[in-house]
């Protein structure tokens, strides 16, 4: 059986009286890349904060390498790479200073990995973090994580503020790094594009609840989008048992479901609805995410 690197049990948290989630359970296995996806405000950063020991949940607990995240030992912290939302780093330092600072804390510090990335990005050692663009900052943060060589990476909304090129660069580097070293990654994002290139497992959250927990590829295999036209434009498909999400523009219907094309067609026929232009649409992860969570 694969070892669970992260294990969260019965997490419940409130901000004041506002419930964020109740009895949330999930685990991340060694060597897996798990993406926590959800809309803004559904509790992604809350989960990251709990994992990093910057928030005590109202109840439940999270374990990393078997240690409670409320009390991580220095050794466990050393195995853990952490990217703060917005690629925050010490802006008063320059490229050279920041490397010098971090190098003292990690036994396996890989200086070359960091400076190689910096030179590839044409970032000068004397350049200050505060004078960098968001994309450059992301590369500095990535370079530092690569140099640290952690066993577990926790990345909070790494895609924030990155243009598509930088995002792709980040994703590709991360995937290559994680897979080559059998590293475990837990990340959150509210931008789903490019995510299927990266993640193995997915945890999709909506306000107060978990919509999906499992393998990303399995999900993409089982989850479908169908479009068809009906004669009438006043049919409500949302209440059907097989519907996960449905939408309609005039008499053109979109249906997101775990059911097969035959099952959908049978359901329509059973209701006496004549359909035409019935098609299965090929989805990206982003499409599937919207299909699962709705557009708003």
């Amino acid at each position, binding site marked *: 059986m694969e070892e669970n690197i992260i294990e969260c049990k019965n997490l419940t948290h409130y901000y004041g009286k506002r419930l964020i989630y109740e009895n949330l359970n999930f685990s991340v296995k060694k060597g897996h890349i798990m993406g926590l996806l959800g809309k803004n405000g559904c509790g992604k950063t809350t989960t990251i904060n709990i994992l990093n020991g910057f928030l005590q949940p109202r109840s439940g607990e999270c374990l990393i390498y078997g240690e409670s995240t409320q009390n991580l030992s*220095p050794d466990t*912290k050393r195995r853990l790479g952490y990217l703060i939302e917005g690629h925050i*780093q010490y*802006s*008063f330092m320059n490229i050279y200073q920041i490397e010098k600072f*971090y*190098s003292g*804390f990690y036994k396996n510090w890989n200086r070359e990995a960091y400076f190689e990335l910096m030179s590839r990005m044409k970032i000068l050692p004397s350049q200050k973090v505060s004078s960098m663009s968001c994309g450059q900052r992301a590369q500095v943060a990535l370079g530092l994580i690569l140099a640290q060589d952690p066993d577990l990476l926790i990345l909070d909304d790494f895609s924030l503020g990155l243009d598509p090129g930088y995002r792709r660069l980040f994703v590709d580097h991360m995937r290559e790094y994680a897979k080559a070293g059998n590293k475990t990654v837990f990340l959150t994002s509210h931008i789903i594009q490019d995510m299927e290139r990266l993640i193995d497992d997915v945890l999709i959250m909506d306000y107060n609840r978990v919509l999906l927990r499992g393998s990303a590829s399995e999900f993409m295999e089982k989850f479908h989008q169908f479009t068809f036209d009906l004669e009438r434009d006043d049919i409500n498909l949302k209440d059907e048992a097989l519907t996960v999400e449905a939408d309609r523009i005039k008499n053109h219907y979109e249906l997101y479901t775990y059911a097969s094309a035959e099952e959908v067609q049978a359901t329509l026929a059973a209701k006496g609805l004549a359909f035409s232009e019935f098609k299965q649409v090929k989805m990206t992860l982003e499409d599937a995410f919207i299909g699962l969570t709705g557009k708003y």
Partner: protein
Amino acid sequence: MILHLFYKEWLKTRWFLFFVVLLGLAIVTYIFLDVDNNVRMKGSFNYLMNVFYGIPQANYYHSLIKYVPLLMGVCVGLSQYVPEVIDKRIKLTLHLPMHNTVTLYMMLCFGFLMLLASYAVVFGTFFYLNNLYFPFEESWAVLTSLMPWLLGGVAVYFMIAMISMEPNLFYQFLYGIVAFFLVKQFYIGMEHADTRHIIPALAIMAFVPCTALLYTSYRFIKGER
């Protein structure tokens, strides 16, 4: 590891320290230019009579240094903690592979040592020059009146550290009020004041806030908002 942590603190504070020490030295220089001028104009004996027995307000040649320790405490504190508070960078620091308490107290220790070092440079120069112009008794009188002011700088530094770690803006404001009235008590004395009997009380008031970091950092780590 601790040296690397100190390296980070040094990068944050070095320019502020440099400027505040420079300002302190400039004030000391001005004070002794004035003393030298007075000695030349009035003669040593007459000037010393003025300093010891003149109308007090006219003779406190060292009044200008009263708030220098406070300024030093504020500068070291703000330069050290403001960059950590902006964008909650303190999370990066607390993520370093050390115990949180050790990390926080090493930062505090660095700031305190820097404060002491700045005191040593500025007030060391002051007393060196003071001994050139005045007898020991005058230096002693200045030292006793200076002690509360030096402690005031320490108190303000610890209070800034404590307030910075507090996650809630409203409570930061309340602690700010407490800090104001606490620090005020160190600066009510005049320039020739025998403070020996109250130094223990003031020292307690200055050093007790160094523990407060444990309270606000605990609130931060537990995710209070």
